[in-house]
């Protein structure tokens, strides 16, 4: 990590250690919007790290976004930071201005479709999108929609949709938004530099960093716990079977971190389709296995609401299914690899 990113990581760790307390997460789980925390993030330039300064961002790269998102995963930050980064990127790359405040994106599920239609000088939005993160709370929704002119990116304001609120396992808002001839703030054809599945792949990319960060928390928290907790007259850490379980967790954590790191680097290099698929598959799988190990090592106490382990494990269980689960990306990747042919596997792998 370069010096700027080390500094960025330190800033996040400091801010989140102070601010993202169990009490704050609990109140967010009851539906409160942590407005003060959002404001601090925005003021510190942490919500748009990779957006050009000309569009209101911090002018960094995706590698910077990764640092922030990993920290959000590690601390279970109950805010749409990832969604804001992705939404701003879609707008910015399509030549549109980025509004202040929290954003979210739609659609999240591969099967949902939205459409934009011309209406006078502007556009209107139709369609239904399920499981939209903070769909009702975010100031604006950035949508990827079809139109007669081709695929477009549009921006609609909060309140433009009929909203059915719901939550995920971690009690983060996951709302169903339905638009019917809703007015659009701005819209443009998808930027030429964006891949066709830009919203979903950027979402998968962001979740991979959050999950890798969450796994780091599981590892450090579990190591801390087994070192302190005494059973049968000695610390759990001294039992070989515990040591081996945590070595396994360390392996999954390292693999997840590496996969995410590679995907963000590929994003900065300009073509990350392959690496994002790998990262979402690898971090998603590590999340399931890692959460299992962390809970087993914590015993019954980790299964209580009082203990904070579940703030991260419940998120991991939810995030791995969003923006395409492992099975979605693996099928996509597998079909591509098979179409290239058996003998192209290795040359393809080494060309990335």
């Amino acid at each position, binding site marked *: 990590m370069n010096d700027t990113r080390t500094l960025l990581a330190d800033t996040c760790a400091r801010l989140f250690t102070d601010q993202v307390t169990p009490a704050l997460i609990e109140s967010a789980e009851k539906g409160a919007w942590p407005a003060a925390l959002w404001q601090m993030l925005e003021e510190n330039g942490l919500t748009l790290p990779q957006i050009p300064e000309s569009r209101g961002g911090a002018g960094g790269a995706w590698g910077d976004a990764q640092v922030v998102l990993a920290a959000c995963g590690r601390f279970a930050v109950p805010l749409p930071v990832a969604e804001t980064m992705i939404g701003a990127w879609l707008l910015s790359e399509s030549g549109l201005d980025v509004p202040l405040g929290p954003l979210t994106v739609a659609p999240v599920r591969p099967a949902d479709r939205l459409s934009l239609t011309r209406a006078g000088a502007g556009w209107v939005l139709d369609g239904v999108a399920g499981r939209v993160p903070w769909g009702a709370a975010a100031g604006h929704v950035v949508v990827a929609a079809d139109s007669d002119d081709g695929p477009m990116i549009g921006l609609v304001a909060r309140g433009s949709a009929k909203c059915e609120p719901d939550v995920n396992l971690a009690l983060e808002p996951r709302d169903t938004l339905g638009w019917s001839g809703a007015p659009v703030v701005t819209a443009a054809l998808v930027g030429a530099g964006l891949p066709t599945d830009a919203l979903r792949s950027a979402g998968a990319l962001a979740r991979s960093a959050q999950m890798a960060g969450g796994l780091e928390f599981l590892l450090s928290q579990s*190591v801390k716990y087994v070192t302190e907790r005494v059973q049968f007259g000695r610390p759990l850490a001294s039992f070989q079977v515990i*040591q081996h379980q945590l070595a396994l967790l*360390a392996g*999954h954590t390292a693999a997840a971190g590496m*996969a995410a790191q590679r995907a963000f680097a590929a994003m900065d290099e300009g073509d990350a389709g392959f690496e994002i698929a790998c990262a979402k598959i690898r971090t998603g799988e590590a999340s399931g296995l890692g959460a299992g190990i962390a809970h087993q090592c914590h015993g019954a106490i980790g299964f209580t609401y009082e203990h904070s382990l579940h703030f991260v494990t419940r998120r991991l269980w939810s995030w791995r299914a969003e923006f395409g689960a492992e099975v979605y990306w*693996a099928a996509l990747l597998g079909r591509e690899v098979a179409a290239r042919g058996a003998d192209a596997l290795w040359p393809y792998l080494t060309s990335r």
Partner: protein
Amino acid sequence: MATFNFQLGKLPPEAQKVRAEIRDFLARTLGGTSATKRALSWGGFDRDFSRRLGEAGFIGMTWPKKYGGHERSALERYVVLEETLAAGAPTSAHWVADRQSGPLLLRFGTEEQRQRFLPRITKGELAFAIGMSEPDSGSDLASIRTRAERVEGGYRVNGTKIWTSNAHISDYAIALFRTKVVPDKKHEGLSQFLVDLKSEGIGIRPIIDLAGGHDFNEVHFQNAFVPDDMLVGKDGDGWKQVTTELAFERSGPERYLSSIRLIIELIREVGAEPGERAAVVIGRLTAHMATLRQMSLSVAGMLQAGQNPNLEAAVVKDVGTSFEQEIPEVVHALLGVEPRLGSGSQFERVFGYLVEHAPSFSLRGGTREVLRGIIARGLGLR
């Protein structure tokens, strides 16, 4: 808690150039080799192939030119390893010498030993075996008992080594013997020797593996004489030297590529337009392999930078061998084919070979349990 230092490794342009060269060499040399032969991975032993690889400049790549080396970077060598493994080239006749014995002599050998052995290794002419384990030692290397006693002009050796791969077809072994018994300090008094496997007093007995293959041996020393000039490093420094040697053994791409032939043949088997389940399996395996490659490259980058990534190497080996062992399982779950040996399709035979050999992947070079102990120590748990 200690954290692992996995940073992205990037291959320099010269390494990409080497990739094109080795690919071209392998295509010319291995054309027509069957998938079942290629499935042997680094188990295939072929002196002729090793000589040609040496002639082409791909052995001892990082070593000084004065010993026949090519003074290339560790990353250029890494690319050659990747490509030979991915192609299923028979590397066994030079593998140990290139990976371990040569670097050991460069580090601890005398000038005379270097001049005598290294140039011949780089030509692909010398095959080495590793004489570490003993009947009662296994992964507990410090418990070895084979004695080398000081006599006029050298040492007199008695005892038995076991699991010595290719001892019956190799020229030399680098073996660890006890030169002094230090009570309660089993890591002390160990020394490493270069042993000419054709010497008198050495008996080699085959151990046939469960697949019917002959790779392992028992090597018996009965008053075998090893001259002074075949001591490697200092008398009594063996333990320190061996642990250095093991770091070389754990960091390479061989720790996740042993089953790659089965993935390749699986893709061939299911065709260009696989069904959903097969596509998911292939995509998942690809994602794991690509990630392991990045982890392994990261360790290679650290080695190139002169760092000591022992812990990261242990992580790569643990995750990597679990992956390569999982592949036959995954293939079985998907297709339910019977693993075959001499009969059946090429795919069934590749599958059969890997089903039988997969258990060894997490045994060789330190068992999974030993590695997890190393990782746990890195985490501060012991």
